[in-house]
Protein backbone atom coordinates (compact mmCIF):
# COMPACT_ATOMS: atom_id res chain seq x y z
CA UNK A 1 0.00 0.00 0.00
CA UNK A 2 1.41 3.37 -0.97
CA UNK A 3 1.41 6.34 1.37
CA UNK A 4 -1.39 7.99 -0.56
CA UNK A 5 -3.58 4.90 -0.48
CA UNK A 6 -2.97 4.62 3.23
CA UNK A 7 -4.08 8.19 3.74
CA UNK A 8 -7.23 7.60 1.71
CA UNK A 9 -8.14 4.60 3.86
CA UNK A 10 -7.50 6.52 7.09
CA UNK A 11 -9.58 9.36 5.77
CA UNK A 12 -12.47 7.02 5.00
CA UNK A 13 -12.32 5.43 8.45
CA UNK A 14 -12.29 8.83 10.17
CA UNK A 15 -15.21 9.99 8.03
CA UNK A 16 -17.18 6.85 8.83
CA UNK A 17 -16.61 7.19 12.57
CA UNK A 18 -17.52 10.85 12.76
CA UNK A 19 -20.66 10.31 10.65
CA UNK A 20 -21.67 7.43 12.88
CA UNK A 21 -21.13 9.56 16.01
CA UNK A 22 -23.26 12.36 14.60
CA UNK A 23 -26.02 9.90 13.73
CA UNK A 24 -25.94 8.37 17.22
CA UNK A 25 -25.99 11.77 18.91
CA UNK A 26 -28.88 12.99 16.79
CA UNK A 27 -30.80 9.73 17.06
CA UNK A 28 -31.24 10.37 20.78
CA UNK A 29 -32.88 13.67 20.01
CA UNK A 30 -35.27 12.06 17.55
CA UNK A 31 -35.87 9.19 19.93
CA UNK A 32 -36.86 11.61 22.68
CA UNK A 33 -39.08 13.57 20.32
CA UNK A 34 -40.59 10.36 18.95
CA UNK A 35 -41.50 8.93 22.34
CA UNK A 36 -42.79 12.33 23.41
CA UNK A 37 -44.99 12.72 20.36
CA UNK A 38 -46.37 9.20 20.58
CA UNK A 39 -47.09 9.23 24.29
CA UNK A 40 -48.07 12.89 24.28
CA UNK A 41 -50.50 12.76 21.37
CA UNK A 42 -52.03 9.67 22.93
CA UNK A 43 -52.67 11.56 26.17
CA UNK A 44 -53.80 14.75 24.49
CA UNK A 45 -57.49 15.58 24.37
CA UNK A 46 -59.68 18.64 24.55
CA UNK A 47 -60.61 17.93 28.14
CA UNK A 48 -57.02 18.69 29.14
CA UNK A 49 -57.55 22.34 28.26
CA UNK A 50 -60.96 22.55 29.93
CA UNK A 51 -60.55 20.84 33.31
CA UNK A 52 -58.20 21.51 36.15
CA UNK A 53 -56.47 18.96 38.29
CA UNK A 54 -58.44 16.43 40.27
CA UNK A 55 -57.64 13.49 42.49
CA UNK A 56 -56.63 10.33 40.64
CA UNK A 57 -59.48 8.25 39.31
CA UNK A 58 -61.77 11.16 38.35
CA UNK A 59 -62.74 11.41 34.70
CA UNK A 60 -62.86 15.18 34.44
CA UNK A 61 -59.24 16.04 35.05
CA UNK A 62 -57.03 18.25 32.96
CA UNK A 63 -54.12 20.65 32.88
CA UNK A 64 -55.88 23.99 32.56
CA UNK A 65 -54.54 25.10 35.93
CA UNK A 66 -50.95 24.23 34.99
CA UNK A 67 -51.16 25.72 31.48
CA UNK A 68 -52.48 29.06 32.69
CA UNK A 69 -50.09 29.02 35.65
CA UNK A 70 -47.16 28.32 33.34
CA UNK A 71 -48.12 31.21 31.05
CA UNK A 72 -48.51 33.56 34.00
CA UNK A 73 -45.16 32.55 35.52
CA UNK A 74 -43.24 32.80 32.25
CA UNK A 75 -45.08 35.98 31.24
CA UNK A 76 -44.34 37.65 34.56
CA UNK A 77 -40.71 36.54 34.40
CA UNK A 78 -40.49 38.04 30.90
CA UNK A 79 -41.94 41.34 32.06
CA UNK A 80 -39.38 41.50 34.88
CA UNK A 81 -36.36 39.98 33.13
CA UNK A 82 -36.48 41.40 29.61
CA UNK A 83 -36.31 45.14 30.43
CA UNK A 84 -33.58 44.52 33.01
CA UNK A 85 -31.60 42.34 30.62
CA UNK A 86 -31.89 44.74 27.70
CA UNK A 87 -31.04 47.79 29.78
CA UNK A 88 -28.05 46.08 31.38
CA UNK A 89 -26.87 44.94 27.94
CA UNK A 90 -27.27 48.49 26.69
CA UNK A 91 -25.15 49.77 29.53
CA UNK A 92 -22.39 47.29 28.72
CA UNK A 93 -22.32 48.00 24.99
CA UNK A 94 -23.00 51.74 24.91
CA UNK A 95 -21.70 53.11 28.22
CA UNK A 96 -19.47 50.61 30.02
CA UNK A 97 -17.69 49.40 26.86
CA UNK A 98 -14.25 48.17 27.90
CA UNK A 99 -14.22 49.59 31.41
CA UNK A 100 -13.31 47.43 34.38
CA UNK A 101 -16.87 47.58 35.69
CA UNK A 102 -18.28 46.39 32.36
CA UNK A 103 -15.89 43.45 32.20
CA UNK A 104 -16.72 42.50 35.77
CA UNK A 105 -20.44 42.57 34.98
CA UNK A 106 -19.88 40.43 31.87
CA UNK A 107 -17.91 37.87 33.86
CA UNK A 108 -20.44 37.69 36.68
CA UNK A 109 -23.25 37.38 34.17
CA UNK A 110 -21.49 34.49 32.44
CA UNK A 111 -21.05 32.75 35.78
CA UNK A 112 -24.73 33.33 36.57
CA UNK A 113 -25.67 31.71 33.28
CA UNK A 114 -24.15 28.44 34.44
CA UNK A 115 -25.37 28.64 38.04
CA UNK A 116 -27.38 25.53 39.00
CA UNK A 117 -31.02 26.53 38.72
CA UNK A 118 -31.91 24.89 42.02
CA UNK A 119 -29.49 27.25 43.76
CA UNK A 120 -31.34 30.21 42.30
CA UNK A 121 -34.56 28.64 43.59
CA UNK A 122 -33.03 28.28 47.05
CA UNK A 123 -31.89 31.91 46.97
CA UNK A 124 -35.37 33.18 46.09
CA UNK A 125 -36.82 30.89 48.76
CA UNK A 126 -34.55 32.51 51.35
CA UNK A 127 -35.09 36.15 50.35
CA UNK A 128 -38.74 36.15 49.22
CA UNK A 129 -40.64 33.04 50.24
CA UNK A 130 -39.37 32.91 53.84
CA UNK A 131 -40.03 36.60 54.67
CA UNK A 132 -43.46 36.43 53.00
CA UNK A 133 -44.25 33.23 54.82
CA UNK A 134 -45.76 31.42 51.83
CA UNK A 135 -45.10 30.32 48.26
CA UNK A 136 -46.18 32.71 45.52
CA UNK A 137 -46.25 33.20 41.77
CA UNK A 138 -44.14 36.32 42.31
CA UNK A 139 -41.34 34.26 43.85
CA UNK A 140 -41.46 31.77 40.97
CA UNK A 141 -41.44 34.49 38.33
CA UNK A 142 -38.52 36.28 40.00
CA UNK A 143 -36.52 33.04 40.11
CA UNK A 144 -37.16 32.55 36.39
CA UNK A 145 -36.34 36.21 35.66
CA UNK A 146 -33.00 35.88 37.45
CA UNK A 147 -32.16 32.99 35.14
CA UNK A 148 -33.30 34.94 32.09
CA UNK A 149 -31.37 38.15 32.73
CA UNK A 150 -27.82 36.94 31.97
CA UNK A 151 -28.94 35.38 28.68
CA UNK A 152 -30.69 38.52 27.46
CA UNK A 153 -27.95 40.78 28.80
CA UNK A 154 -25.29 38.87 26.88
CA UNK A 155 -27.16 38.72 23.56
CA UNK A 156 -28.15 42.37 23.81
CA UNK A 157 -24.54 43.36 24.53
CA UNK A 158 -23.26 41.25 21.60
CA UNK A 159 -25.92 42.38 19.15
CA UNK A 160 -25.52 46.09 19.95
CA UNK A 161 -21.78 45.82 19.45
CA UNK A 162 -22.39 44.44 15.97
CA UNK A 163 -23.96 47.78 14.96
CA UNK A 164 -21.15 49.66 13.17
CA UNK A 165 -19.62 52.55 15.11
CA UNK A 166 -19.80 54.78 12.05
CA UNK A 167 -23.60 54.58 12.20
CA UNK A 168 -23.50 55.95 15.75
CA UNK A 169 -21.07 58.68 14.68
CA UNK A 170 -23.33 59.63 11.78
CA UNK A 171 -26.24 60.11 14.15
CA UNK A 172 -24.10 62.15 16.55
CA UNK A 173 -22.89 64.23 13.60
CA UNK A 174 -26.50 65.24 12.91
CA UNK A 175 -26.77 66.61 16.43
CA UNK A 176 -28.48 63.65 18.08
CA UNK A 177 -28.15 63.29 21.86
CA UNK A 178 -26.82 59.93 23.04
CA UNK A 179 -30.14 58.44 24.16
CA UNK A 180 -31.60 59.25 20.75
CA UNK A 181 -28.67 57.61 19.00
CA UNK A 182 -29.22 54.45 21.04
CA UNK A 183 -32.99 54.31 20.58
CA UNK A 184 -33.23 55.46 16.96
CA UNK A 185 -30.15 53.95 15.40
CA UNK A 186 -28.51 51.29 17.59
CA UNK A 187 -31.68 49.50 18.74
CA UNK A 188 -33.11 49.61 15.25
CA UNK A 189 -29.99 48.10 13.79
CA UNK A 190 -29.95 45.31 16.36
CA UNK A 191 -33.71 44.71 16.49
CA UNK A 192 -33.70 41.16 15.09
CA UNK A 193 -30.80 40.06 17.28
CA UNK A 194 -32.31 41.43 20.49
CA UNK A 195 -35.67 39.83 19.75
CA UNK A 196 -33.98 36.50 19.15
CA UNK A 197 -32.12 36.82 22.44
CA UNK A 198 -35.39 37.51 24.24
CA UNK A 199 -37.12 34.50 22.67
CA UNK A 200 -34.22 32.17 23.42
CA UNK A 201 -34.11 33.54 26.97
CA UNK A 202 -37.80 32.77 27.44
CA UNK A 203 -37.36 29.33 25.90
CA UNK A 204 -34.46 28.67 28.23
CA UNK A 205 -36.43 29.31 31.44
CA UNK A 206 -39.81 27.99 30.32
CA UNK A 207 -38.68 24.41 30.84
CA UNK A 208 -37.22 24.93 34.32
CA UNK A 209 -38.56 22.95 37.26
CA UNK A 210 -35.98 23.36 39.98
CA UNK A 211 -36.32 27.13 40.54
CA UNK A 212 -40.09 26.73 40.87
CA UNK A 213 -40.08 23.79 43.30
CA UNK A 214 -39.84 25.94 46.38
CA UNK A 215 -40.88 29.34 45.05
CA UNK A 216 -44.19 29.08 43.20
CA UNK A 217 -44.48 25.48 44.44
CA UNK A 218 -47.54 23.86 42.90
CA UNK A 219 -51.28 23.61 43.18
CA UNK A 220 -53.78 21.23 41.73
CA UNK A 221 -56.39 23.92 41.17
CA UNK A 222 -56.81 26.86 38.87
CA UNK A 223 -55.66 30.21 40.28
CA UNK A 224 -54.62 33.62 39.04
CA UNK A 225 -53.67 34.95 42.45
CA UNK A 226 -50.03 36.01 42.19
CA UNK A 227 -49.65 35.95 45.96
CA UNK A 228 -50.44 32.27 46.20
CA UNK A 229 -48.69 29.11 45.16
CA UNK A 230 -49.17 28.66 41.44
CA UNK A 231 -49.20 25.47 39.39
CA UNK A 232 -46.82 25.14 36.45
CA UNK A 233 -46.52 22.57 33.70
CA UNK A 234 -43.07 21.54 34.80
CA UNK A 235 -43.75 20.93 38.48
CA UNK A 236 -47.13 19.38 37.68
CA UNK A 237 -45.42 17.08 35.23
CA UNK A 238 -42.89 16.11 37.89
CA UNK A 239 -45.59 15.36 40.45
CA UNK A 240 -47.81 13.44 38.04
CA UNK A 241 -44.96 11.48 36.54
CA UNK A 242 -43.73 10.13 39.86
CA UNK A 243 -47.25 9.26 41.00
CA UNK A 244 -48.38 5.64 40.80
CA UNK A 245 -51.67 6.53 39.07
CA UNK A 246 -52.14 5.79 35.41
CA UNK A 247 -54.35 8.77 34.60
CA UNK A 248 -51.95 11.20 36.29
CA UNK A 249 -49.05 9.72 34.36
CA UNK A 250 -51.04 10.25 31.15
CA UNK A 251 -51.50 13.91 32.06
CA UNK A 252 -47.76 14.08 32.76
CA UNK A 253 -47.05 12.96 29.20
CA UNK A 254 -49.48 15.51 27.83
CA UNK A 255 -47.77 18.25 29.88
CA UNK A 256 -44.35 17.15 28.60
CA UNK A 257 -45.59 17.24 25.02
CA UNK A 258 -47.18 20.70 25.27
CA UNK A 259 -44.14 22.15 27.05
CA UNK A 260 -41.70 20.73 24.50
CA UNK A 261 -43.71 22.03 21.56
CA UNK A 262 -43.88 25.48 23.16
CA UNK A 263 -40.12 25.62 23.68
CA UNK A 264 -39.35 24.11 20.28
CA UNK A 265 -41.64 26.73 18.70
CA UNK A 266 -39.88 29.59 20.51
CA UNK A 267 -36.48 28.30 19.42
CA UNK A 268 -37.53 27.95 15.80
CA UNK A 269 -39.11 31.41 15.69
CA UNK A 270 -36.00 32.91 17.33
CA UNK A 271 -33.72 31.34 14.76
CA UNK A 272 -35.95 32.33 11.85
CA UNK A 273 -35.94 35.96 12.97
CA UNK A 274 -32.16 35.95 13.20
CA UNK A 275 -31.87 34.34 9.77
CA UNK A 276 -34.25 36.87 8.22
CA UNK A 277 -32.27 39.69 9.85
CA UNK A 278 -28.99 38.36 8.47
CA UNK A 279 -30.32 37.89 4.96
CA UNK A 280 -31.36 41.54 4.69
Amino acid at each position, binding site marked *: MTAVQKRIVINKIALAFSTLSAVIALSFLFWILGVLVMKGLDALSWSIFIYEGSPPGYADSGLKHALVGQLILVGLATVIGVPLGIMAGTYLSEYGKNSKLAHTIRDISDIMMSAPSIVIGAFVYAVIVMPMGHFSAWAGAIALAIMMIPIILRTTDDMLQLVPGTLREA*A*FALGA*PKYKVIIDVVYRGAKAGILTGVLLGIARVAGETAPLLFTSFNDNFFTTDLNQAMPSLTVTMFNYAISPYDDWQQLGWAAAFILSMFILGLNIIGRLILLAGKRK
Partner: protein
Amino acid sequence: MASIIDIKEECALQVRNFDFTYKGAPAPSLKKVTMPIAKNAITALIGPSGCGKTTLLRAFNRMHDLYPGNKYEGEIEFEGRNILDPKEDLIHLRTKIGMIFQKPTAFPMSIYDNVAYGMRLQGIKNKTELDGRVEKALQDAAIWKEVSDRLKHDANGLSGGQQQRLCIARAIAVEPEVLLFDEPTSALDPISTQGIEKLVIELKERVSIIIVTHNMQQAARVSDYTGFMYLGDLVELGNTEELFVTPKEKLTQEYITGKFG
Protein backbone atom coordinates in the same frame (compact mmCIF):
# COMPACT_ATOMS: atom_id res chain seq x y z
CA MET B 1 8.19 76.90 8.02
CA ALA B 2 4.70 76.44 6.78
CA SER B 3 3.46 78.56 3.95
CA ILE B 4 -0.13 79.60 4.57
CA ILE B 5 -1.97 81.72 2.06
CA ASP B 6 -3.87 84.81 3.19
CA ILE B 7 -7.49 84.40 2.26
CA LYS B 8 -9.02 87.68 1.12
CA GLU B 9 -12.63 86.55 1.20
CA GLU B 10 -14.70 85.96 4.29
CA CYS B 11 -13.78 82.93 6.37
CA ALA B 12 -16.14 80.27 7.68
CA LEU B 13 -13.66 78.92 10.17
CA GLN B 14 -10.34 80.07 11.58
CA VAL B 15 -7.97 77.54 13.08
CA ARG B 16 -5.30 79.09 15.30
CA ASN B 17 -2.40 77.30 16.99
CA PHE B 18 -4.41 74.14 17.19
CA ASP B 19 -2.89 71.13 18.97
CA PHE B 20 -4.68 67.83 19.25
CA THR B 21 -3.58 64.89 21.38
CA TYR B 22 -5.30 61.50 21.39
CA LYS B 23 -5.93 59.80 24.72
CA GLY B 24 -2.74 58.26 26.05
CA ALA B 25 -0.58 59.44 23.13
CA PRO B 26 2.84 60.77 24.15
CA ALA B 27 2.85 63.53 21.53
CA PRO B 28 0.18 65.61 19.82
CA SER B 29 -1.17 64.33 16.48
CA LEU B 30 -1.67 67.88 15.25
CA LYS B 31 0.92 70.53 15.97
CA LYS B 32 0.20 74.26 16.02
CA VAL B 33 -2.07 74.13 13.01
CA THR B 34 -3.17 77.55 11.82
CA MET B 35 -5.42 77.79 8.82
CA PRO B 36 -8.31 79.85 7.49
CA ILE B 37 -11.25 78.06 5.86
CA ALA B 38 -12.86 80.22 3.18
CA LYS B 39 -16.61 80.70 3.16
CA ASN B 40 -18.61 79.20 0.28
CA ALA B 41 -15.52 77.54 -1.09
CA ILE B 42 -14.10 74.06 -1.07
CA THR B 43 -10.97 73.42 0.94
CA ALA B 44 -9.28 70.07 0.37
CA LEU B 45 -6.94 68.42 2.86
CA ILE B 46 -4.38 66.08 1.34
CA GLY B 47 -1.40 64.17 2.67
CA PRO B 48 -0.16 60.65 3.31
CA SER B 49 -1.93 58.27 5.69
CA GLY B 50 -1.51 59.24 9.32
CA CYS B 51 -0.70 62.88 8.57
CA GLY B 52 -3.64 64.10 10.66
CA LYS B 53 -6.06 65.29 8.00
CA THR B 54 -8.99 63.26 9.29
CA THR B 55 -8.05 64.14 12.87
CA LEU B 56 -8.26 67.82 11.93
CA LEU B 57 -11.57 67.32 10.11
CA ARG B 58 -13.11 65.56 13.08
CA ALA B 59 -12.13 68.44 15.34
CA PHE B 60 -14.43 70.84 13.47
CA ASN B 61 -17.56 69.11 14.75
CA ARG B 62 -15.87 67.90 17.96
CA MET B 63 -16.34 64.27 16.94
CA HIS B 64 -13.35 63.39 19.12
CA ASP B 65 -15.49 64.11 22.17
CA LEU B 66 -17.31 60.80 21.63
CA TYR B 67 -14.20 59.07 22.93
CA PRO B 68 -13.14 60.46 26.29
CA GLY B 69 -9.58 61.47 27.08
CA ASN B 70 -8.67 63.35 23.90
CA LYS B 71 -7.21 66.82 24.33
CA TYR B 72 -7.71 70.01 22.31
CA GLU B 73 -5.53 73.09 22.64
CA GLY B 74 -5.60 76.35 20.72
CA GLU B 75 -8.58 77.80 18.98
CA ILE B 76 -11.06 77.11 16.20
CA GLU B 77 -13.22 80.16 15.60
CA PHE B 78 -16.69 79.69 14.17
CA GLU B 79 -19.42 82.34 14.13
CA GLY B 80 -17.39 84.53 16.44
CA ARG B 81 -16.68 82.01 19.18
CA ASN B 82 -14.08 79.37 19.99
CA ILE B 83 -15.80 76.02 19.42
CA LEU B 84 -13.13 74.21 21.43
CA ASP B 85 -14.54 75.84 24.54
CA PRO B 86 -15.63 73.03 26.91
CA LYS B 87 -18.94 74.88 27.34
CA GLU B 88 -19.70 74.71 23.60
CA ASP B 89 -23.15 73.17 22.92
CA LEU B 90 -22.12 70.19 20.77
CA ILE B 91 -25.62 69.33 19.65
CA HIS B 92 -26.06 72.84 18.29
CA LEU B 93 -22.57 72.85 16.79
CA ARG B 94 -23.21 69.60 14.93
CA THR B 95 -26.38 70.93 13.36
CA LYS B 96 -24.31 73.84 12.02
CA ILE B 97 -21.35 71.74 10.93
CA GLY B 98 -22.45 68.52 9.25
CA MET B 99 -20.37 65.51 8.27
CA ILE B 100 -20.29 62.91 5.50
CA PHE B 101 -18.34 59.75 6.22
CA GLN B 102 -16.09 57.49 4.21
CA LYS B 103 -18.58 54.65 4.09
CA PRO B 104 -22.23 55.49 3.50
CA THR B 105 -24.07 55.53 6.83
CA ALA B 106 -27.73 55.06 5.96
CA PHE B 107 -29.71 54.46 9.14
CA PRO B 108 -31.79 51.27 9.35
CA MET B 109 -35.01 53.09 8.49
CA SER B 110 -36.84 54.32 5.39
CA ILE B 111 -35.35 56.76 2.88
CA TYR B 112 -37.79 59.42 4.02
CA ASP B 113 -37.04 58.90 7.71
CA ASN B 114 -33.32 59.07 7.03
CA VAL B 115 -33.60 62.53 5.49
CA ALA B 116 -36.13 63.71 8.06
CA TYR B 117 -34.01 62.46 10.97
CA GLY B 118 -32.01 65.64 11.59
CA MET B 119 -35.07 67.86 11.19
CA ARG B 120 -37.09 65.75 13.59
CA LEU B 121 -34.25 66.06 16.11
CA GLN B 122 -34.72 69.80 15.87
CA GLY B 123 -38.37 69.38 16.76
CA ILE B 124 -39.93 69.85 13.34
CA LYS B 125 -43.10 67.75 13.37
CA ASN B 126 -45.30 69.46 10.77
CA LYS B 127 -45.86 66.87 8.04
CA THR B 128 -46.18 69.40 5.20
CA GLU B 129 -42.97 71.13 6.16
CA LEU B 130 -41.11 67.82 6.56
CA ASP B 131 -42.41 66.56 3.19
CA GLY B 132 -41.30 69.74 1.47
CA ARG B 133 -37.86 69.84 3.01
CA VAL B 134 -37.23 66.12 2.48
CA GLU B 135 -38.07 66.53 -1.21
CA LYS B 136 -35.90 69.62 -1.54
CA ALA B 137 -32.94 67.98 0.19
CA LEU B 138 -33.22 64.90 -2.02
CA GLN B 139 -33.42 67.11 -5.10
CA ASP B 140 -30.42 69.12 -4.00
CA ALA B 141 -28.52 65.89 -3.48
CA ALA B 142 -29.46 64.81 -7.02
CA ILE B 143 -31.18 61.63 -5.93
CA TRP B 144 -34.86 62.66 -5.90
CA LYS B 145 -35.63 61.19 -9.33
CA GLU B 146 -34.27 57.80 -8.33
CA VAL B 147 -36.11 57.50 -5.02
CA SER B 148 -39.26 59.63 -5.29
CA ASP B 149 -41.47 56.57 -5.82
CA ARG B 150 -40.01 54.57 -2.94
CA LEU B 151 -39.51 56.99 -0.09
CA LYS B 152 -40.97 54.50 2.39
CA HIS B 153 -38.55 51.75 1.38
CA ASP B 154 -35.60 50.70 3.52
CA ALA B 155 -32.62 52.95 2.78
CA ASN B 156 -30.25 49.99 2.93
CA GLY B 157 -31.72 48.74 -0.33
CA LEU B 158 -30.00 51.58 -2.22
CA SER B 159 -26.65 51.24 -3.95
CA GLY B 160 -23.49 52.61 -2.31
CA GLY B 161 -23.45 55.75 -4.42
CA GLN B 162 -27.14 56.36 -3.81
CA GLN B 163 -26.67 55.85 -0.08
CA GLN B 164 -23.85 58.37 -0.05
CA ARG B 165 -26.06 60.94 -1.81
CA LEU B 166 -28.82 60.10 0.66
CA CYS B 167 -26.38 60.88 3.48
CA ILE B 168 -25.58 64.20 1.82
CA ALA B 169 -29.32 64.92 1.54
CA ARG B 170 -29.70 64.07 5.22
CA ALA B 171 -26.86 66.43 6.13
CA ILE B 172 -28.05 69.38 4.03
CA ALA B 173 -31.68 68.98 5.12
CA VAL B 174 -30.84 70.68 8.42
CA GLU B 175 -29.25 73.59 6.51
CA PRO B 176 -25.75 73.59 8.00
CA GLU B 177 -23.16 76.33 7.42
CA VAL B 178 -20.26 73.95 6.93
CA LEU B 179 -20.05 70.40 5.57
CA LEU B 180 -17.15 68.09 6.37
CA PHE B 181 -16.43 65.28 3.90
CA ASP B 182 -14.18 62.47 5.11
CA GLU B 183 -12.99 60.70 1.95
CA PRO B 184 -16.56 60.52 0.71
CA THR B 185 -15.81 58.61 -2.48
CA SER B 186 -13.15 56.12 -1.41
CA ALA B 187 -15.74 53.34 -1.14
CA LEU B 188 -17.46 54.20 -4.45
CA ASP B 189 -17.06 53.32 -8.11
CA PRO B 190 -15.83 55.96 -10.64
CA ILE B 191 -19.32 56.88 -11.92
CA SER B 192 -20.70 57.41 -8.42
CA THR B 193 -17.55 59.34 -7.55
CA GLN B 194 -18.15 61.68 -10.45
CA GLY B 195 -21.72 62.25 -9.26
CA ILE B 196 -20.60 63.07 -5.72
CA GLU B 197 -17.87 65.44 -6.95
CA LYS B 198 -20.35 67.31 -9.14
CA LEU B 199 -22.69 67.56 -6.17
CA VAL B 200 -19.97 68.87 -3.85
CA ILE B 201 -19.15 71.64 -6.33
CA GLU B 202 -22.83 72.62 -6.58
CA LEU B 203 -23.19 72.68 -2.81
CA LYS B 204 -20.57 75.38 -2.25
CA GLU B 205 -23.12 77.99 -3.29
CA ARG B 206 -24.74 77.40 0.06
CA VAL B 207 -22.21 75.86 2.41
CA SER B 208 -18.51 76.00 3.11
CA ILE B 209 -16.90 72.65 2.44
CA ILE B 210 -13.85 70.89 3.80
CA ILE B 211 -12.98 67.62 2.12
CA VAL B 212 -10.36 65.10 3.15
CA THR B 213 -9.12 63.01 0.27
CA HIS B 214 -6.45 60.45 -0.49
CA ASN B 215 -6.84 61.24 -4.12
CA MET B 216 -4.81 64.24 -5.32
CA GLN B 217 -6.67 64.37 -8.62
CA GLN B 218 -9.88 64.69 -6.72
CA ALA B 219 -8.53 67.60 -4.70
CA ALA B 220 -7.37 69.25 -7.94
CA ARG B 221 -10.75 68.70 -9.62
CA VAL B 222 -13.08 69.98 -6.92
CA SER B 223 -11.33 72.32 -4.51
CA ASP B 224 -10.58 76.03 -4.45
CA TYR B 225 -7.99 75.76 -1.71
CA THR B 226 -5.79 72.85 -0.80
CA GLY B 227 -3.92 72.18 2.40
CA PHE B 228 -1.06 69.69 2.41
CA MET B 229 -0.45 67.99 5.73
CA TYR B 230 2.48 65.89 6.84
CA LEU B 231 3.13 64.25 10.22
CA GLY B 232 0.68 66.47 12.06
CA ASP B 233 1.83 69.73 10.47
CA LEU B 234 0.02 71.81 7.94
CA VAL B 235 2.89 72.24 5.52
CA GLU B 236 1.21 74.43 2.96
CA LEU B 237 -2.17 75.98 2.28
CA GLY B 238 -2.73 77.64 -1.06
CA ASN B 239 -5.00 78.15 -4.03
CA THR B 240 -5.46 74.68 -5.43
CA GLU B 241 -4.06 75.55 -8.83
CA GLU B 242 -1.00 77.26 -7.43
CA LEU B 243 -0.34 74.51 -4.92
CA PHE B 244 -0.36 71.84 -7.59
CA VAL B 245 1.50 73.84 -10.24
CA THR B 246 3.92 75.95 -8.24
CA PRO B 247 4.11 74.65 -4.70
CA LYS B 248 6.05 76.88 -2.33
CA GLU B 249 7.32 74.11 -0.08
CA LYS B 250 9.78 71.44 -1.17
CA LEU B 251 7.86 68.78 0.81
CA THR B 252 4.64 69.65 -1.03
CA GLN B 253 6.35 69.35 -4.37
CA GLU B 254 7.82 65.98 -3.47
CA TYR B 255 4.43 64.70 -2.38
CA ILE B 256 2.45 65.88 -5.38
CA THR B 257 5.04 64.56 -7.79
CA GLY B 258 4.85 61.17 -6.12
CA LYS B 259 8.31 61.05 -4.53
CA PHE B 260 6.69 59.72 -1.33
CA GLY B 261 3.24 59.04 -0.04
